[in-house]
């Protein structure tokens, strides 16, 4: 499980790779919360191109970050989902609250406007 960050204006791209399960959500959660404690970050997007697996523990972790970001009026998005990850998110109803972008470009355009 690897995590890396990149900042674009006031929104943060969080790149995850490997398998996100209960075993590593704690570590990932801490890394993200540490980063988003910086107040100038308003929106976050998870780039999951290299995430090969997740389950409801991953959903819980993403929802937890969504709630924090929502409090400051920000938006949470995801981009580049592999089929397994997409199915887990769909069945969990995650797309009711998390924005699904087809590409990083789509996310950039979106955040340029909001």
């Amino acid at each position, binding site marked *: 499980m690897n995590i890396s960050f990149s900042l674009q204006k006031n929104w943060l791209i969080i790149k995850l790779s490997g398998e996100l*399960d209960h*075993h590593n959500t704690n570590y990932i959660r801490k890394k993200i919360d540490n980063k988003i404690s910086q107040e100038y970050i308003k929106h976050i997007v998870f780039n999951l191109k290299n995430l090969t*697996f997740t389950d*409801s*523990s991953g959903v819980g972790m993403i929802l937890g970050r969504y709630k924090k970001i929502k409090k400051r009026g920000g938006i949470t998005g995801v981009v580049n989902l592999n*089929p*397994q990850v997409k199915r*887990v998110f769909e069945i*969990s*109803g995650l797309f009711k609250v998390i924005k699904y972008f087809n590409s990083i470009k789509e996310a950039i355009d979106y955040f340029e406007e909001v």
Partner: protein
Amino acid sequence: MRVNNSMKLSFPSKSQNEAFARIVVAAFASQLDPSIEELADVKTAVSEAVTNAIIHAYENTIGPVEIEARLLNHETVEIIVKDFGKGIEDIEKAREPLYTSKPELERSGMGFTIMENFMDSLEVESTLGRGTTVKMVKTFKSIKNRE
């Protein structure tokens, strides 16, 4: 219903074994040569059941988790995940989407819902103070189509 192969695995309820359990069951089920998607479904369901045993059944203690799997005929896998932990008081409520007894751990309450959706059937048996057994069955339709 012919049992063509079977296996039994047990390990302590440590979270590092979640990935291990997924690999083992996937390696076993792949003897039937399912599609990538079907195998991913099985891995996901096993991950949910094993994680529940670790988080909910044993909470912060270590106890045994057992997995039994059987290959039935030439296209069906049956998986049983068993713990000897605290048990579930109200199974019906536990199986409801979004219900979780541990919101403080950011559980989504979607574990059972995912098991149900990713497998063909899900049976849950539990005795308070004794433990929980989850039985899941999936028939790989891609195999039938191939024949």
